[in-house]
């Protein structure tokens, strides 16, 4: 391959995200101007806020679980399965893991292992219901995971009552599972100097999950089969893949990963599943997986961007700028990323045609 073409390809690859960012910034600027605020000053405030060490810790902490949620969704996407149920899977998993962790006293590694195993198992099994229904009864995973989300919400409300899994939290009218003792907590890491608060220790697991995702899907036979099934089920069958088994295994993996989503928060900050445990991360995960185009590094960048926007909305609120601008930014980013990729794809096709045309006309004349 000629080096000149490589430069062009790199430029084209960088063009798409840059274009997307420009479109998203443009839309947000319009919203800001419409509400009577200066876009430039607002951006400066957001960036200035993000430069503070304390904010950076918050951004990394939030991104650590956004990343897990997005990888869970992406595993499904790679196999052409749409797991909308990550939301219910992680909430149910976090509740049961918190209850299990708060009920026992074990030495640290065992205690942690127990909590994480429970979380992965619950998430995986909850998702596997949808997988089994899809594989053996032909029920669309879109509909079954939506139903399972609603069922898990009801189940959590039922289990999280005093007398079942919950106890009253001292000093407030909140209720939650009994707190996990110190042996089941993950200590933070002082990653950013001067922040005062450490980064969730569980961020290491997020990174490891990303590496495992990359290796499993792109470097193993199993990953090849999974991607092949996603691209074309008949072709996969022809090469000897058991599609039904693949559907169940993919949902198990996706749900298992979803089970981890609640862990950074649970083991690093709240130590108990209470009524105010974060919800809706599963839906954010869908958007981030799309933003990162299912690529392990792309998802990481997407998670960091999303969490930066989330955090900077805090400062906007204080400065009197409507913080909903951030939601508009997030939505338009998702849309503009795909539009930008499509535009760049069409543009590069045109370039390719021109290049081939030029090469042909420069050499031997083609047959009439």
């Amino acid at each position: 391959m000629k080096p000149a073409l490589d430069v062009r390809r790199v430029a084209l690859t960088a063009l798409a995200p840059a274009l997307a960012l420009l479109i998203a910034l443009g839309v947000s600027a319009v919203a800001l101007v419409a509400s009577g605020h200066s876009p430039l000053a607002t951006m400066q405030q957001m960036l200035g806020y993000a430069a503070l060490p304390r904010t950076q810790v918050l951004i990394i902490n939030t991104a650590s679980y956004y990343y897990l949620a997005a990888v869970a969704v992406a595993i499904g996407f790679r196999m052409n399965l749409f797991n909308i149920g990550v939301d219910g899977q992680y909430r149910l998993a976090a509740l049961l893991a918190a209850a299990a962790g708060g009920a026992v006293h074990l030495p640290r590694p065992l205690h942690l292992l127990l909590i994480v195993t429970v979380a992965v198992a619950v998430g995986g099994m909850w998702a596997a219901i949808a997988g089994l229904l899809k594989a053996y009864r032909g029920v669309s995973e879109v509909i079954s995971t939506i139903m399972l989300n609603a069922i898990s919400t009801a189940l959590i409300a039922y289990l999280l009552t005093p007398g079942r899994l919950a106890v009253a939290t001292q000093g407030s009218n909140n209720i939650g599972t009994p707190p996990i003792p110190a042996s089941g907590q993950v200590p933070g890491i002082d990653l950013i100097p001067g922040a005062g608060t450490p980064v969730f220790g569980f961020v290491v697991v997020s990174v490891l999950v990303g590496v495992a995702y990359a290796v499993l899907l792109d470097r193993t036979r199993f990953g090849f089969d999974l991607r092949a099934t996603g691209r074309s089920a008949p072709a996969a069958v022809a090469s000897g893949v058991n599609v039904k088994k693949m559907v169940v295994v993919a949902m198990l993996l996706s749900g298992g990963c979803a089970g981890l989503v609640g862990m950074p928060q649970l083991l690093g900050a709240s130590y108990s599943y209470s009524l105010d445990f974060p919800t809706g991360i599963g839906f954010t995960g869908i958007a981030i997986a799309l933003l990162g185009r299912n690529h392990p590094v792309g998802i990481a960048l997407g998670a960091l961007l999303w969490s930066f926007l989330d955090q900077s909305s805090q400062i906007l609120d204080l400065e009197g700028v409507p913080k909903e601008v951030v939601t508009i930014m997030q939505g338009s980013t998702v849309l503009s990323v795909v539009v930008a990729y499509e535009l760049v794809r069409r543009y590069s096709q045109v370039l390719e045609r021109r290049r081939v045309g030029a090469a042909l006309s420069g050499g031997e004349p083609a047959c009439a």
Partner: protein
Amino acid sequence: MRLTPARTALGAFALVALLSIVRAVSGAGDLTSSGAVSAALGLAVPIAMAGLGGLWSERAGVVNIGLEGMMVLGTWGAGWAGYQWGPWTGLVAALAFGAAGGLLHAIATVLFNVDHIVSGVAINILAVGATQFLSGAFFAGQPGGSTKQSPTVGDIGSVGLPFVDVPLGRLEGKHWLLVSDLAGVLRGLLTDLSWITLIAVVLFPLTFFVLWRTAFGLRLRACGESPVAAESLGVNVYRMKLVAVVISGGLAGLGGASLALAASNFYQEGQTGGRGYIGLAAMIFGNWRPGGLAGGAALFGFADALQLRGGQAVHALLLLVAILLALLAVWQLRRRRAVRGLVSLGCAGGMLAVYLLTDSVPSQLTGSVPYVTTLLVLALASQRLRMPAADGMPYRRGEDG
């Protein structure tokens, strides 16, 4: 088996008879009361409208997960125009706002070939952000309004069949087996209907007629089955898809209007509560057909209404589900599907055991009954669902699929 009017009527009568027996056995009078039926109808409308929106879009080959967002836009439009110029203008605005969301989805998916799911998810995020933003700009500071709620909208009014309310009410009060139940159901369906409910009911036969009995509908469905074939016959596939998705958004917006104008009388943040997704589920449940979709929406609406009316009615619902599962088992066994029949029978027995061993369903779990029922029905009934063949596929003019 084709659904003829006679068969439909027979089926409906059998269902009322079954409900009547369950009511008599369980003593849960709310099962067939006019109040429960009318609440069920009201709750089914937003789900049905979202589902109908999904039907239009997916029949033209565009997957529409953005229904939820278009519905959110509809609720906001209804509140914004409704409090200033009255509920009917609110209804039109809801239609327009939903259609605008549909247009965005159409432009992204049809013209830019954006993945349908990506665009839908983005629209759901954008709609929530945009309405929150607009509420802050328009509703905050108005009397009765806040950043999360619009000022109150006037009543859109209701309509009913004349001269039937009083006699049916008297019959219902007698608590006779079957007769009173039928009276209760009819009274719930025929009296005190919101105008929006009436519009929603009319839209079903209208959709069926347009999509299945006109040349326009045939072309539109052809775009969902095989756009390349449609193109070769001279159909402008882009235009068809654009029209279908805009209509889809308008219908979802109408569903939003029913929440803001009929179920309550203001816009409120989070008013849709995921009903767009449930509507999508009802449509898949109904096999991408208006009749099936109406059945699915009615199921969700009925279970929702019973849940709002307390644990006893939901407890009675367990008995109903057990009987239905047992009937399904008999049907499957007669068709010599032994394994499925036995599984269904086992589920029916389990349901019956739960019914007999408990006095009421815990209040936190009643909300999950429609969802569990849907999963059971989909898992146990024979799967004959078939989505449009080119649903969700990208299409570019002149390129062979």
